[in-house]
């Protein structure tokens, strides 16, 4: 009888430990204090491989395409720069009121890379995310695609 309260406490602690499972995980990035957001972001792109560029000549030329979105937020919301940064940012106890706009999708970035290359096929595409943040208030995220250019033989 004297151990019963301890057992109840242990049971409650176990339930508390598993409570997180009741919260569904959302794949959609939700900002809890968004004032306005109209952005397009990268999702998936299976770029051409060298064999897809045949029958062409590899020129050794590189093409670059850049597409950006901008976010302004206050109180400041630091950017997630490293692995695990997201968990630290999510732990900030106050919301950041944000306004975001821009298109940093693969489609617009690749379109600009093709425009830079002129006539030719792009392959071996390396995509990076270039983040610039000032005081954690203004943040500019740019997708940068670097690609090799192949052209049809003359």
């Amino acid at each position, binding site marked *: 009888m004297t151990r019963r309260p301890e057992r109840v406490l242990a049971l409650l602690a176990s339930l508390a430990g598993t409570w997180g499972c009741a919260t569904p995980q959302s794949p959609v990035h939700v900002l809890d204090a968004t004032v306005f957001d109209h952005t397009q972001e990268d999702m998936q792109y299976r770029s051409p*491989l060298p064999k897809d560029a045949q029958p062409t000549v590899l020129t050794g030329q590189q093409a670059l395409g850049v597409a950006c979105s901008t976010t302004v937020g206050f109180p400041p919301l630091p950017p997630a720069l490293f692995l695990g940064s997201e968990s630290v940012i999510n732990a900030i106890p106050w919301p950041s009121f944000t306004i975001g706009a821009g298109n940093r999708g693969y489609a617009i970035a690749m379109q600009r890379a093709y425009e830079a290359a002129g006539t030719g096929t792009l392959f*071996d595409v390396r*995509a*990076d995310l270039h983040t610039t943040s*000032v005081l*954690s208030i203004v943040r500019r995220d740019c997708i940068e695609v670097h690609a090799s250019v192949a052209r049809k033989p003359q």
Partner: protein
Amino acid sequence: MVPKRGKEAHPMLRSFITGAALAALLTGCLYADVRAPLSYGSATPGDAGGNLGREVTGSACNTAVLWLFAFGNGGYDAAVRDAQGNSGAPFLVDVKADTAYTNVVFGIYQRQCTNVTARVPVASAAR
């Protein structure tokens, strides 16, 4: 003397509150300019006709110091260019990408590197 002591405490308290408010508002990062890897559909051995040459490695890093500044180019492009080096290869094959992370004393110094290991296609296959 007692009222004077009280007057001296006020600026100190004010400084503390101002410091705490600034720390809360700035949340650490004053300026960041970094490039992170996003995606890379690298060439496969089939693109080189199965003719794979020597192995090369490349690295590209981002660094953050004192929770205030972050800088670097740790993207795929920089890492692949570093691996290509002077090989003259138009592309790399069988690319493996890993990330290396260093964190010293709660993040006073952080460094994250993208490391690629790949094979160079032999000249005949690379055209």
